């Protein structure tokens, strides 16, 4: 027998909490689920069970806003079930949920809000699978959640703001950063000027970080490509070189760093697995970072009573997530017949703020767009699908044999069939397909997502509440 509620919110980050805060006034039965053990999503990672957020001064104040969201939700009695994985969303808005105790149960909601945020994008290079090569996010989490530096000396690289933010964090906490290898060039940053004047505070934060890094004597190298991670059983050194404007490696610019830790990140991919599994339509919008859930202005997806907010509708940062959480909360209140007073005016204001943040997101996404030139440089023996040990050579052979869609490649090579179900390799496969078949990435859609969208014990699926009681 499944349990019921009014609203189920998947993800307790900025979007989920903002929605919960709006919804909590109404007396509706709201459940919020998050797989993490803390509340607040990526930005508010902090030691398990505490409320102390590690982080330095910021102009933008987004973390402060986030902490206010957490406090507000708590004050209104919103209970977040942490350590909880949502395994699937089924017709009739029934969620299959694995609780923190490992038991699996079902809950049916009148409305569902998908707000699962985003994860990092990875770029393969020779040796990237060596232990010691980690994501920038992983290093951030170690620092913020566990008070741990990723290594004594870390080499940082990649695209977007996160490598710089990480480098600053490492310095602040007494670690050493060997260099920051920026995939982008200085000229790419010109795009940021488009974000002025509205997003001045965000840009000031960026400038502030750059200033701190310079003052700490950390070398920031623009337009760098990581050529190889070397080591026997784990990372020992990294070779990088400079690229020209067209992506070609400039010979003679190779640098070798001795290090046991390389932290890399290449932007963000929305976690749209749950809406896709449920059957929500997705669309490819380059200005929103690629494949996102398709939503209307009130953030309802193509499935009735299923809403989406935050990074899943487009990569644009925490402020957009907060705004969209509020929009979704108000829309759901209306849908459930208890609209908030002043709702139409509130929504109008929020819509305008959302447009601003989407514009900012478009600038960031433009700046962080990866061109496909890296595909040519990947050696045949480099692993593309880590879960299944599928190499570039296998992919190329399958392409030559005529398997030219993500679904066909998945069948022919097994890429995407492993434990992570394509979360790491799908963006890579799409870029390879776009480059090798010269197609528009917008026409390369994801292969099917099936439940459970995260791994779950067979025994847990076999039990339900009745059998536990009996």
């Amino acid at each position, binding site marked *: 027998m499944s349990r019921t509620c009014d609203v189920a919110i998947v993800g307790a980050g900025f979007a989920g909490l903002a929605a919960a805060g709006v919804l909590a006034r109404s007396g509706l039965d709201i459940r919020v689920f998050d797989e993490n053990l803390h509340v607040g999503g990526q930005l508010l990672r902090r030691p398990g069970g505490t409320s102390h957020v590690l982080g330095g001064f910021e102009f933008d104040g987004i973390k402060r806003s986030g902490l206010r969201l957490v406090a507000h939700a708590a004050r209104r009695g919103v209970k977040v079930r942490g350590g909880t994985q949502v395994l699937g969303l089924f017709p009739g808005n029934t969620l299959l949920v694995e609780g923190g105790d490992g038991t699996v149960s079902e809950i049916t909601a009148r409305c569902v809000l998908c707000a699962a945020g985003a994860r990092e994008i990875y770029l393969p290079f020779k040796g990237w*699978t060596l232990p010691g090569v980690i994501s920038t996010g*992983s290093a951030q*989490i*170690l620092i913020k959640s*566990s008070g741990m530096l990723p290594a004594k000396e870390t080499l940082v690289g990649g695209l977007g703001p996160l490598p710089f933010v990480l480098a600053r964090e490492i310095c602040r*906490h007494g670690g050493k950063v060997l260099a920051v290898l920026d995939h982008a060039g200085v000229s790419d940053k010109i795009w940021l000027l488009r974000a002025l004047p509205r997003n001045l505070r965000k840009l000031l934060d960026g400038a502030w970080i750059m200033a701190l890094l310079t003052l700490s004597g950390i070398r920031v190298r623009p337009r760098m490509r990581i050529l190889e991670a070397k080591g026997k059983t784990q990372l020992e050194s990294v070779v990088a070189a400079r690229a020209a404007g067209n992506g070609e490696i400039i010979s003679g610019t190779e640098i070798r760093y001795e290090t046991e830790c390389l932290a890399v990140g290449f932007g963000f991919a929305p976690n749209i697995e749950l809406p896709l599994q449920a059957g929500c339509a997705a669309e490819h919008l380059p200005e929103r970072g690629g494949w996102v859930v398709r939503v209307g202005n009130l953030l309802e997806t193509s499935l009735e009573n299923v809403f989406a907010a935050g990074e899943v509708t487009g990569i644009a940062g925490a402020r957009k997530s907060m705004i969209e959480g509020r929009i979704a909360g108000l829309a759901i209140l209306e849908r459930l017949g208890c609209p908030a007073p002043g709702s139409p005016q509130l929504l109008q204001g929020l819509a305008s703020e959302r447009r601003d943040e989407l514009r900012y997101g478009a600038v960031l996404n433009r700046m962080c767009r990866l061109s496909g030139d890296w595909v040519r440089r990947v050696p045949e023996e480099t692993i593309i699908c880590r879960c299944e040990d599928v190499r570039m050579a296998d992919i190329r052979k399958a392409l030559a044999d005529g398997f030219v869609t993500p679904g066909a490649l998945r069948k022919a090579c097994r890429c995407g069939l492993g434990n992570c179900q394509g979360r790491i390799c799908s963006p890579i496969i799409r870029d390879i397909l776009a480059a090798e078949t010269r197609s528009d990435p917008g026409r390369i859609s994801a292969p099917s997502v099936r439940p459970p969208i995260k791994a779950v014990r067979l025994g847990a699926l076999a039990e339900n509440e009745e059998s536990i009681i009996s």
Partner: protein
Amino acid sequence: MRIETISRGEKVTLFVNRKAVTAYRGETVHAALLAAGCRVLRKSKTGAEFRGFLCGMGVCYECLVTINGLAGQRACMRLVEDGMEVRIDEPDL
């Protein structure tokens, strides 16, 4: 390596491949293993490569270890507990 200026929870003991390892409440198993010098966790599916931590947030399933007898656990998603038994499929080093 642990950041010295951060205050931590109480000390706990993990047993990693039966060796006692000190950790602190509030840390993830990922962090505790890293502090103990473990970066290599297992071999890849076909046994061709060594693997360790990657995403740190439960997405990549690279950091699989056996915790208290249950295989296939993501070290980055579990907090340390006193007396926790962690088994790593160590490669032949």
